[in-house]
């Protein structure tokens, strides 16, 4: 099957098996090295990418669903302004995930920020207990335990603060 899609700003026209998983396409056909996908079972959470700006497990997306989609891997995402909010949060908390899960955890954090600010643009001023539970749950998608949950929640809170304030300044 021929699929036409955009990955990290470039258009591709590939001939692949129609039900080949996106993570395999990115790793085998496009040479992506940031994915580190291992389980083929949606249990490791290391294959996260952004599809049309929404985080998704790429091991669960077949080729036939990719026509006309825009995909962003971590390699491209880390060059964007959005990443800087999370990068600053990592610096402030002085902790980062390990190299194996860094990409996936960062994209999960990006997904969390989008979700919290979409429902309430002032969320960065007041994070409630239920938001922390939500953050904890989303982060559990990635099975690596290299960093304490409380530290990750602090990182998300900081990143949310930076993102929220930046949006206010922009508007």
């Amino acid at each position, binding site marked *: *099957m021929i699929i036409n899609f955009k990955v990290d700003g470039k258009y591709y026209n590939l001939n*692949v*098996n*129609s*039900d*080949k*998983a996106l993570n*395999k396409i990115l790793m*085998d056909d496009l040479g992506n090295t940031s994915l580190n996908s291992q*389980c*083929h*079972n*949606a*249990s490791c959470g290391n294959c*996260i990418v952004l599809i049309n700006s*929404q*985080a*998704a*497990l790429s*091991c*669960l*997306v*077949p080729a*036939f*669903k990719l026509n006309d989609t825009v995909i962003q891997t971590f390699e491209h995402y880390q060059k964007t302004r959005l990443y800087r909010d999370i990068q600053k949060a990592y610096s402030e908390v002085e902790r980062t995930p390990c190299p194996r899960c860094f990409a996936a955890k960062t994209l*999960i954090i990006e*997904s969390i920020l989008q*979700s919290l600010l979409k429902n309430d643009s002032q969320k960065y001023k007041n994070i409630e207990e239920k938001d922390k539970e*939500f953050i904890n*749950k*989303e982060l*559990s*998608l990635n099975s690596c335990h290299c960093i304490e949950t409380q530290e990750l929640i602090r990182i998300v809170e900081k990143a949310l603060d930076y993102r929220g304030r930046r949006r206010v300044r922009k508007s």
Partner: protein
Amino acid sequence: MITEEEDVYENLKSATVYTPKNFSELSNMKMLAPKAIFWGGGTYLMTRETNENLDNPREIISLDKIPELKEIFRTDNSIEVGAMVNLDNFAAACRPMFKDEVIQAIHSIGTQIIRKQATIGGALCTRTIKTNLSVILYCMEAQVEIRSLKRKKSFSRWIPISSLYDSNGKLTLSDDSIIVKIKIYTQKDKSYFFRNTGSPMLDSDTTTIFGISNLINQNNLLSTRIIFAYPQIGLHIPEETITQLANQFIPINPQRIQKLAQNLGTNIKKHFPNLSELQLEQSTRIFESYLYYLNRSFLELIQIHKRK
């Protein structure tokens, strides 16, 4: 670098994918490819254990482009949700009309990232129980619209969610039928309680899923629905326990709670003799703890009324 054992695509031919845009095209495509599998969100079909067991080459009918399957229709007292609506949107649609316990139970199926990829129809139509969605929908008294594609002109019928599965939890849907939508009537006074003892996806041989709903009129239990799901074994609706709880006064005394739990355990064991001791113990304990929770909630309510 791909090793032979990891590359599941090495010896596979590319699957033929049909993408109907309406039910008429769907019927025609199913007649052309009777062995084709229906594809919803793909979160179940794309996992390795499922993928490797499918035919090679395979034929796929993707339901992604049929607009009726993605519709959400609300009235004052009911909601109809298409089978291709993802679980996150389903929870959001139910939020204004159902209690928090229901929304939290839907959220417990997976993270938001997973819920946005998984569909209602896909989550219901797995070979073994992979989520607690069937338990949640049973307690919500959901009805399911099934469309049969056997003949040129397809026809639909509505069935209760419990009829979608046999007593062993196996899907009774034939290969040439699809779930079109689910319908749920809201009942504002209904109470819900859901518990999982683990993940049906990751701990399928040790997980017990429990759901109960009822109405409480003054201090009487009415319209109780109870269901247990054991991922590798099946579904169980304990009719005898439901009968014993009919018109039960609350608070329930501890001896009665113990007796009810014991009877429940005996019935479950009779129905599923191969059920593990762990899951049996989990079932009776969760049920007991629910009845104590019911007592506590009721007594707290009385205290609040007394203070007023």
